[in-house]
């Protein structure tokens, strides 16, 4: 499947993706495939995944989000998840989804600054 599922905006070297709506598992997987392609096909060095319009993130969606971030890193770029709603964050922590290793920011603007910092700090070693 190669058709695009989500619109991806480019700001400088960073790709900005805003997820929205109620996502079923197939859609989530297709988004993962699309974003991996986008990073591989562009010279983007960062990706911000905006989840502020997701009112539900269950363990599957969370797991795929973490996988997308890991893949972006493998492809030599940095990724951060921005805008997790407070109710979603509380739910994810209680659900027990391990997301502590994800770089996150409250807003897209803070996310851009975070990516800048990650790029600067990126000396080839894994960040905690």
């Amino acid at each position, binding site marked *: 499947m190669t058709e695009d599922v989500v619109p991806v905006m480019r700001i400088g070297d960073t790709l900005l993706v805003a997820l929205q709506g109620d996502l079923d598992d197939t859609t989530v997987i297709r988004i993962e495939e699309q974003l991996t392609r986008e990073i591989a096909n562009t010279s983007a060095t960062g990706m911000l995944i905006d989840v502020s319009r997701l009112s*539900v993130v269950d*363990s599957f969606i969370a797991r795929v989000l973490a996988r997308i971030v890991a893949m972006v890193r493998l492809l030599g770029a940095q990724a951060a998840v921005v805008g997790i709603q407070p109710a979603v964050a509380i739910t994810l922590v*209680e659900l027990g*989804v391990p997301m502590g290793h994800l770089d996150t920011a409250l807003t897209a603007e803070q996310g851009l600054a975070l990516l800048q910092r990650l790029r600067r700090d990126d000396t080839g070693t894994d960040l905690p």
Partner: protein
Amino acid sequence: MTTGSFTNHEPDVFGIGHEADLIRVRKVLRAEAETAGLNLVDATKLITAGSELARNILNYATGGRGRIRVEQIHREGRRGVRATFSDDGPGIEDIDAALTDGFSTRGSLGLGLPGAQRLVDDMTITSDTTSGTTVVIVKWER
């Protein structure tokens, strides 16, 4: 375990057998959570727990099929939502193990059942290898 009584509000009952039903389950739970006056955090927890349980049916039940029933409940002046997920098999062999974090027969994170349990006020599982599995979750308004 019985919690509360029915109201005249008709329960939502429908089959689960396709991925699109994940979205329907979330939508119905959201509407019922609103009716019961659950706050945003509690509604989100209930919807997420329901999403996990519906996915369990798709992934583990015979033919990936099952049913859900969602209803309003009342107890001592408090309102709540009860959702009952049932399937016709094959049943959970070891419920205690299935309720343990990290236990999975499918290579997933194994958070489905124990995670759902943490998100609701009450969760009961009945399961045997002849009649299948029923999981009942309850969330009360604060």
